[in-house]
């Protein structure tokens, strides 16, 4: 298997804080890898290291077969990057930004002209391409930033929270573009996100990062299965959490009980079979139930299971 990204024990320390603390990755070519975690988990620091903007404190990584520390130029020739904040010059036009990118990647005039034309169609900003960036909406900036990352047809594309702050329509457009680039061009895509739905919908595999470490990794289906087939989510008073855990833990068919504030998560192979005993047990123990739902697990449940906390941003913004 040819790896597009291969990192071993990457560490990055700022002062006393290890922003990334031993991240190892093996991402084959052609995969969409979702790097999922809350704000401050270390996602962007990991991206900055893998894209040569930041040296690791320790550890090694190869991107497109080249060392990120000792062969930076070859890495840069093979990667495209759209950072968390669209990195654009507001006084230039979209066309000027794309043309400049093409120049710096050594494309000749014909190639640049062709690529700009193709990218305009891809990211759907034809009408505004000769306007200055300062007049663009947030979604247009993101799409132009993506286009700038694609001018030279990179082998590996890094997208750092590409839909944060976007409206649903723009988000949907970016998702379509990501799928297209992966499916039609075979591009490996390393996508960081704090949105569970995004990782679930886009990624072939997901790595969940918390406090600088990868705490779980696998396909979204594998990760969700790892905590059981079904989840019973119960909302109770936070003061009843420990009692609830004790009274539910002994019910036959319950695999695990986790408490996070007012949220009680009961994992079970067959949720339908245990939902009634769970409700009865809570009632018999005088634990008031505000809400009880039976559902399949989400990546948020996986995050809770592996870190003991919920993701802060657990919804894609409306």
């Amino acid at each position, binding site marked *: 298997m040819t790896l597009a990204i291969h990192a071993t024990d990457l560490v990055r320390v700022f002062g006393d804080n290890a922003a990334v603390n031993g991240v190892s990755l093996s991402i084959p070519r052609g995969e969409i890898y979702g790097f999922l975690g809350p704000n401050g988990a270390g996602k962007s620091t990991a991206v900055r290291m893998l894209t040569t903007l930041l040296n690791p404190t320790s550890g090694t990584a190869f991107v497109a077969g080249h060392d990120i520390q000792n062969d930076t130029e070859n890495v840069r020739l093979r990667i495209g990057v759209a950072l968390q904040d669209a990195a654009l010059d507001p006084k230039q036009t979209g066309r000027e930004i794309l043309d400049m990118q093409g120049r710096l990647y050594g494309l000749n005039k014909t190639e640049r002209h062709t690529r700009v034309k193709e990218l305009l169609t891809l990211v759907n900003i034809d009408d505004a391409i000769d306007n200055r960036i300062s007049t663009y909406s947030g979604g247009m900036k993101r799409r132009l930033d993506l286009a700038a990352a694609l001018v030279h047809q990179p082998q590996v594309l890094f997208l750092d929270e590409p839909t944060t702050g976007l409206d649903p329509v723009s988000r949907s457009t970016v998702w379509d573009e990501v799928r297209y680039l992966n*499916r039609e061009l075979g591009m490996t895509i390393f996508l960081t996100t704090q949105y569970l739905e995004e990782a679930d919908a886009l990624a072939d595999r997901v790595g969940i990062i918390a406090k600088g470490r990868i705490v779980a990794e696998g396909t979204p289906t594998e990760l969700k299965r790892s905590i059981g087939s079904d989840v019973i989510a119960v909302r109770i008073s936070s003061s009843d959490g420990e009692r609830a855990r004790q009274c539910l833990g002994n019910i036959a068919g319950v695999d695990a009980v986790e408490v996070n504030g007012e949220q009680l998560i009961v994992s079970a192979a067959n949720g339908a079979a245990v939902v009634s005993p769970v409700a009865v047990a809570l009632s018999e123990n005088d634990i008031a139930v505000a809400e009880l739902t039976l559902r399949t697990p989400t990546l948020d449940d996986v995050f809770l299971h592996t870190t003991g906390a919920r993701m802060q941003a657990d919804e894609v913004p409306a």
Partner: protein
Amino acid sequence: MSNSTRTPTSTLDSHEQSRVTARRAGFFRDLGSVALRALRLVSRDSEAVLPALIIPIFFLLVNIGALQSFVEENLPPGFDFKGFQIPVSVVFAVTGISRAGSLVLDVQDGYLDRLLLTPVSRSTLLMGLMVADFVVVILMTIPVIILGALIGVSFATGFAGQLVFILIAATWGLAFTGFPYAIALRTGNPVAVNNAFLLFFPFAFLTTAFIPQEQMTGWLSTVADYNPTTYLLAGMRSLILTGWDGTALFQAALAIVLVGAVSFTLAFAALRGRVKHR
């Protein structure tokens, strides 16, 4: 490979891509690309350039109006105070002219990171801006020479002298740009860059800006002896007032080289610090 659940848009379905291969553009193409962008932005940044031209012209007219009679009365007959002041006006106009403010914005907007993600030669990120500065300084010197001609200042060295005058002004402007760039790259702070002109105060005022050195006394005369601007102004004035003077021109060139050596050392050290992936 993706577990896609959406139907791609028709735009994407119909989209076809040519194949290109990324490669190093090379030093000179990188330099040209960065300089071209910087020059393009100058034309969109007139609010930063025009005052730098207007203020020295204002001072030229005020200084001549206020001091011409006084200075000429105290000097041997034939002293041309207008010609004496033209280099001061040019030096005031071109010193500190740089794209450092724009560089700070690139740092803040993240655009510098976008450039650093490409295989661009790192030194051209600064040198390209300096090329643009050089062109701008030339363009700013010409109106002052024209104004000088309008108020009766002629060059003893003729048209060739005017070209050398412009060259000296441009290289001086270039030599001084290292200071604001060093501040921009070290701090990433626009306020600090805006205050960089304060660095020019000792260069500008502890020298022969308003009266000839032989009229200066005491500590100011001593300081002026060690101020490179003194020799710069002497070289430029020689082209207007006395004719070709090899010694004056050599000393002016030496002053430029010395200031440039210091400022460029600081600027490129700051660039290395900014791009070394700390």
